[in-house]
């Protein structure tokens, strides 16, 4: 390649390759790499593709279980058995950095990417979730990011027809300049339909299908290579533009193709595009793959091999076709009006060989490139854990004012402004719509009820990453239990700062250990996920945010439960001890600007016992509503439970044991393992004794009543709020911030 720059130490460094790594490349090749090969190594050995910094940590996750059909890391997404020959494939991905630069397209292509991962497995995408973090809405830039990200998700998801049925949104200073956009997708498939991303069958033809390749995302891959060629002098966009319409065609074509039995292997082109898909399919298949770039459909002229291989253009797939089935495959591509090309063959020599019009430009042992990236054990430096909050430091608060203030904080307030913009009803499966603890979706193909939630309280993780990690899983499991579901498995998205900072890396390690411990406790193996490091702005790293996506199954329609009070007169019970932990609470943060103190401890055994007891009660048909206590504690949970039907409650802690004598603490502490549930009056004694018999703490708090929330505390004081006022504070907050 005559025009290629010479391989200098500067060029190597610019590619993010260390001298040690370069020596390793020389060993693998037995020679110096050329320029294109250097680019290939740099993307494949980036953190994004190789997990070179996080792999030793990820090995701590439990990955197996009786329901696991495809394990984490084996394929594009894990697959879990849901019974009767059906399985679900699901995964979460981040698109943080692209969204920071171009919120609409960044978020949209994030959705496109995760949906592609799912149908690459042979599964039909069924629904999505999204987990978002922004700086405070008081700043115009954050409003712009929030609104752009939501429109981007809405655009892509609505257009392709995959409902977005749940998620979470938090606002905190630590995300200023570095928003988080994590998207989750779940698909359904028959066990025998699981597709593999492996290049099997020497001699099989390799097809490229989907959008033409352009110079998209080149700067995003490993580095910005601005002055490589004449043609590339113009600006190269670091952000890709998504085309949900093209992806919809690709989705239908791929599922039709997989059903036709003509496919030996399939792999989407995500990060590192053609490079990653060719070497990974070869490596998984124990074969080699040879392609010719001259045959690749292109959107622009004059693209170099380097550019074609590293392009991150969206909506593309690599398909290994069974020899002899080429015509059948072409017919399907043509039916769906998709560009395609027969670009190469599966070989038996273990090489990833790339030609350009016959001339070999890349020749690398595929498995070494895909699997032999260096692994680093990064240095960690622990931070001291904060002390628990001393109640004496909590000033007397205007409680009547504090509750609506908390409810109107955008992190707690209604997210209806968000999910109204998402088509959450397409595919006709909403049994529980957005707005309750977990979304419940009827997968019609399989006739199964699946519940899903995403959770992470990053304040806890910042103050105590290990406990924070445990709580993220525990809260997800609790949300599922409240909707009547049995948790099946977990996907996670680890969002952290620069791993070279030992404190950041310690946070990552602690969070992972916490997640892993909790996943074991709830018997929910991790089936996959994503790592996003370098989430920093000049002001510092984001709060560690290990987002958890958890999926559960509901055995019968009768078990579906929501968080909302149903009828006046129903008895309100608190499951779990009233608690008194104030560290890391939203009360301290929102009312006093104090993001501090030791966050709540979670006892995983007790937590699990509570979930099991709740599910048992639900199965007996005794539970009319169940809502977990999370941000804002018991008072917020009681208020939220009344919002759907505008029902109030008459509640008293006065004659109930164990309630704290500080009203602030009793109402707003965030101790874990608590659920507010309601039962019909006639069943309340039975429910209570059943729970006591199971050995879980239960307290009778009062009844659903009237149109005010009336709470008498252990000090004998009574606070009363009209539900309409609380509802207004909660429901109008985000719209008012966004549309003044």
């Amino acid at each position, binding site marked *: 390649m005559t025009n290629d720059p010479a391989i200098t130490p500067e060029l190597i460094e610019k590619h993010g390759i260390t001298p040690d790594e370069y020596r390793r490349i020389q060993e693998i090749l037995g020679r110096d790499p050329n320029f294109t090969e250097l680019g290939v190594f740099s993307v494949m050995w980036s953190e994004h593709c190789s997990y070179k910094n996080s792999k030793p940590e990820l090995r701590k996750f439990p990955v197996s279980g009786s329901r696991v059909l495809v394990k984490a890391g084996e394929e594009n997404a894990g697959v879990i058995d849901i019974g009767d020959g059906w399985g679900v494939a699901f995964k979460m991905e981040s698109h943080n950095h692209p969204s920071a630069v171009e919120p609409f397209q960044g978020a949209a292509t994030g959705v496109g990417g995760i949906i592609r991962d799912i149908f690459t497995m042979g599964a039909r995408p069924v629904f999505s979730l999204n987990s978002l973090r922004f700086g405070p809405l008081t700043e115009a830039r954050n409003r712009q990011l929030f609104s752009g990200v939501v*429109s981007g998700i*809405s655009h892509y998801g*609505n*257009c*392709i*027809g995959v409902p977005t049925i749940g998620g979470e949104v938090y606002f905190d200073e630590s995300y200023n300049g570095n928003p988080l956009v994590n998207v989750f997708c779940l698909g359904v498939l028959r066990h025998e339909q699981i597709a593999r991303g492996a290049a099997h069958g020497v001699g099989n033809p390799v097809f490229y299908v989907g959008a033409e390749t352009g110079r998209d995302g080149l700067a995003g891959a490993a580095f910005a290579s601005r002055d490589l060629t004449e043609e590339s002098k113009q600006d190269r966009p670091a952000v890709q533009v998504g*085309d*949900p*319409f*093209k992806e*919809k*065609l690709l989705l239908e074509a791929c599922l039709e193709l997989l059903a036709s039995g003509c496919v030996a292997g399939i792999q989407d082109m995500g990060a590192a595009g053609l490079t990653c898909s060719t070497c990974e399919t070869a490596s998984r298949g124990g074969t080699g793959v040879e392609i010719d770039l001259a045959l690749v459909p292109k959107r622009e002229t004059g693209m170099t091999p380097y550019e074609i291989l590293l392009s991150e253009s969206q909506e593309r797939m690599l398909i290994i076709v069974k020899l002899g089935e080429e015509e059948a495959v072409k017919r399907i591509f043509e039916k*769906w*009006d998709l560009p395609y090309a027969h670009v190469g063959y599966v070989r038996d020599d273990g090489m990833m060989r790339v030609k350009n019009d016959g001339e070999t430009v890349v020749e690398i042992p595929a498995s070494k490139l895909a699997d032999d990236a260096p692994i680093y054990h990064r240095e960690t430096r622990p931070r001291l854990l904060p002390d628990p909050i001393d109640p004496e430091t909590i000033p007397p608060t205007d409680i009547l004012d504090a509750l609506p203030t908390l409810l109107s904080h955008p992190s707690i307030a209604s997210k209806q402004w968000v*999910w*109204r*913009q*998402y*088509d*959450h*009803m*397409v*595919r*006709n*499966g*909403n*049994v529980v719509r957005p707005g309750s603890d977990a979304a419940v979706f*009827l997968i*019609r193909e399989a006739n199964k009820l699946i519940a899903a939630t995403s959770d992470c309280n990053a304040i806890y993780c910042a103050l105590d990453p290990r406990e924070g990690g445990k709580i993220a899983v525990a809260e997800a499991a609790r949300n599922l239990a409240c909707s009547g579901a049995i948790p099946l498995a977990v996907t996670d998205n680890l969002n952290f700062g620069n791993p070279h900072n030992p404190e950041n890396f310690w946070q990552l390690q602690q969070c992972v250990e916490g997640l892993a411990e909790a996943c074991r406790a709830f018997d929910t193996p991790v089936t996959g996920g994503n790592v996003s490091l370098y989430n920093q702005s000049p002001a510092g790293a984001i709060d560690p945010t290990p987002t958890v996506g958890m999926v559960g199954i509901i055995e019968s*329609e009768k078990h579906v439960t929501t968080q909302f009070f149903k009828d006046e007169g129903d008895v309100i019970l608190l499951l779990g001890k009233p608690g008194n932990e104030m560290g890391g609470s939203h009360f301290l943060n929102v009312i006093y600007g104090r993001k501090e103190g030791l966050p709540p401890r979670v006892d995983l055994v007790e937590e699990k016992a509570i979930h099991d007891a709740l599910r048992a009660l639900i199965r007996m048909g005794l539970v009319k509503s169940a809502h977990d206590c999370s941000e804002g504690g018991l008072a917020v949970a009681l208020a939220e439970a009344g919002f759907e039907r505008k029902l109030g409650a008459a509640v008293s802690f006065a004659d109930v044991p164990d309630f704290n004598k500080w009203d602030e603490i009793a109402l707003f502490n965030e101790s874990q393992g608590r659920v507010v549930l309601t039962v019909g009056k006639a069943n309340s004694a039975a429910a209570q004794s059943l729970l006591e018999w199971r050995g879980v703490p239960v307290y009778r708090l009062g009844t659903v009543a009237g149109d005010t929330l009336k709470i008498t505390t252990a000090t004998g004081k009574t606070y009363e709020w009209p539900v309409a006022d609380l509802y207004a504070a909660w429901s109008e907050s985000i719209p008012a911030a966004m549309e003044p």
Partner: protein
Amino acid sequence: MKFAVIRFPGSNCDQDCFQALSESMNADVEYVWHKEHSVDGFDAIVLPGGFSYGDYLRCGAIARFSPVMSAVKEAASAGKLVIGICNGFQILCESGLLPGALVRNQGLHFVCADTTIRVETAHSPFTNALTAGAVLKIPVAHGEGCYTADAETLESLNKNDQVLVRYSDPNGLTTPEANPNGSLENIAGIVNRERNVFGLMPHPDRAADKRTGSEDGKLIFESMLNWLK
């Protein structure tokens, strides 16, 4: 009697419509691909929701030129029943089978929510199982559902009893708050002069199963089945 559900590239409620008709209504249904030139053999045609051809340019603007639409036009003029739901309504307006146009929601955002709609007349193949004044709970999900038409068109729609459903509150009052997208006179769905082509933004296909909310949409399909009997 047999229903056709047209599949454009980018249709995404085709399966929902198919299921609602076949499972909830026990009707005979088949998919028809957009490249087909004929819809012979079908008694009723469903243009489903979605983003046909990506909805680039304007919603329904490109779908209008697809081969199957010429066949749909012929079928419409032969008096067969045509129902366009959401994107289908947009396609019907773009192709001139229905008057007026659907533009960007007044609030500028996509809106996915339950709405209640008031039936204006039982005198149509699409509402004969209902009574005027009945209120149905049927969800909407669209970004461009604001119905507009010039004064003359509007007048003739009203005069000829062509507005079949309007957004209303649960008591049947057509208040501004009940209007999810700013549609003129809360119009949610209209029929052509000949009364055999119906377009509406709400999704009866998403209101045909108790488990997922409402069953009110079935009454519209039931009307069509009555008519075809």
